[in-house]
């Protein structure tokens, strides 16, 4: 089942397209890697997928009520915000779930346990390490039971243990039929999980075999 389809889309800011003629679709259960050199337009693509940037041209279709769980780079969030880990995860409950049931404290606690932060719920979000912050943000996305996860470099600057927790949860979700779109600079670490790969380059997006992206030659091509 297709969750999201882009057709001949131009993506960018105001009327200026950073990426042109973008076309691909995301189906349930896809684990899609998104890679490209710095400044190639990965974040533009990600922000367009979640609806933060209107399309410059073309169209994007998705079923009504599609639920997106977004995990930004933890560095993009304000460090001074007086917010506990519990507060951050609870933000994910602030829209009802698919079946009309409003997730609450129990679901937030469950998500915290899933990411291994149950003992840090009362701690300030700002005081967490990079990996812990990323896990808290994943818990926020988990709470609302999304159809599609969109993640911006969730394992960059994160220790191996935290990266393993994040990837394990995403693999479980993908096998349960949830789609995952992940921007990464570490495709080699994701070779076993990814089912599709998109390379963002030359002002457009090209689908390439996963084996090609998740190989040393592929990585060399990414940074070329």
């Amino acid at each position, binding site marked *: 089942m297709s969750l999201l389809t882009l057709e001949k889309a131009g993506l960018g800011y105001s009327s200026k397209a950073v990426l042109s003629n973008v076309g691909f679709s995301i189906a349930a259960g896809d684990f899609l890697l998104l890679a490209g050199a710095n400044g190639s337009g990965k974040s533009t693509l990600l922000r367009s997928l979640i*609806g933060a940037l209107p399309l410059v041209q073309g169209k994007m279709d998705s079923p009504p009520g599609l639920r997106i769980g*977004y995990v930004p780079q933890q560095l993009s969030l304000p460090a001074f915000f*007086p917010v*506990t880990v519990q*507060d951050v995860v609870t*933000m994910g409950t602030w*829209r009802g779930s698919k079946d009309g049931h409003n997730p609450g404290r129990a679901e937030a606690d469950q998500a915290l346990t899933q990411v291994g932060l149950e003992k840090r719920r009362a701690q300030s979000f700002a005081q967490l390490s990079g990996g812990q912050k990323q896990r808290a943000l994943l818990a926020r996305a988990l709470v609302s039971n999304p159809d599609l996860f969109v993640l911006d470099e969730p394992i960059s600057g994160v220790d191996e243990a935290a990266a393993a927790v994040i990837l394990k949860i995403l693999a479980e979700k993908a096998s349960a039929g949830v789609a995952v779109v992940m921007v990464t600079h570490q495709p080699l670490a994701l070779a076993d999980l990814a089912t599709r790969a998109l390379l963002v380059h030359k002002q457009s997006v090209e689908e390439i075999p996963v084996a090609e992206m998740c190989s040393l030659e592929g990585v060399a091509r990414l940074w070329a």
Partner: protein
Amino acid sequence: MGLIEDFDLYWELFATSFLASIVVGVVLPQVGGMMYLRRESFVGIAVPQFAAAGVALGLFLLPWFPSLQESFLDHGHPPLDYLLVFAAGAACLSMLLFSIVLKRQRGEPGALLAGAFATAAALAILFLDGSPAGNNLAETVLRGAVLLLDEHGLWLLTGVCLLTMIFIMAARRSLLAIAFDCDNAIAMRLPVAWLELAQMMLFGLAIGGGVMTVGPVLVFGLLFLPPLAASALASGLRSFQILLSICGLLSVLAAWPLSIEFDLPYGPSAVISAAALTLLCLGLGRLQRRA
């Protein structure tokens, strides 16, 4: 004549102003707190100045409304409803312009806001210069002489602040989600654009109403100092929002004895109280973190 011994007399004289100070002490820190969380406190520096320029423009244009001017000159009651349109209009317009310009990221935001502040201050002076009828009124308002507020002014201020507070409380979750991570709020399909527009309008109304009735000095102080104090002690969002109003309330209450005992203008006295409280909270916050 002391405050305690002659409390009844002071109450009779200043009850309206006292109640107005409580209203702004509770509500304006909530407005400033949201600006703080949105990393837009610097916008709040220029907005009250634009509201003051709006008041000055309203006074400058007063001769075009002869019945209002006549009533003002005869009875000394300022046409507050009329002036609110100018104060809130200027505040909302400036917030809208800042939002557009800052989103386009043209130029250094600090310089832009400093330039806007200077322009608004100059406009206020120029408009007042051409408005002899309102010069004295504007002078006392700009100095934060809240003691001159009449009952109609109190009702107007309370209405505006109540509307703003209801909005903040009703949309609390969505506003906090947008302030923390706007992209995630959009991904969650929250009505971000509408909420931001409503927030801009109501905050403009509250700041405009505050500037017009209690003056920009007190508005500045209550927008910026309580969020600093609250963030030093708060562990989470709920405690931050509760502390905002407690700090604002303590500041406006502490200023009354200070203002009466030492015969000081009330607005600046409240700001000094807020500054002292902020320093105390920053110190306590530091001790708390060490412990």
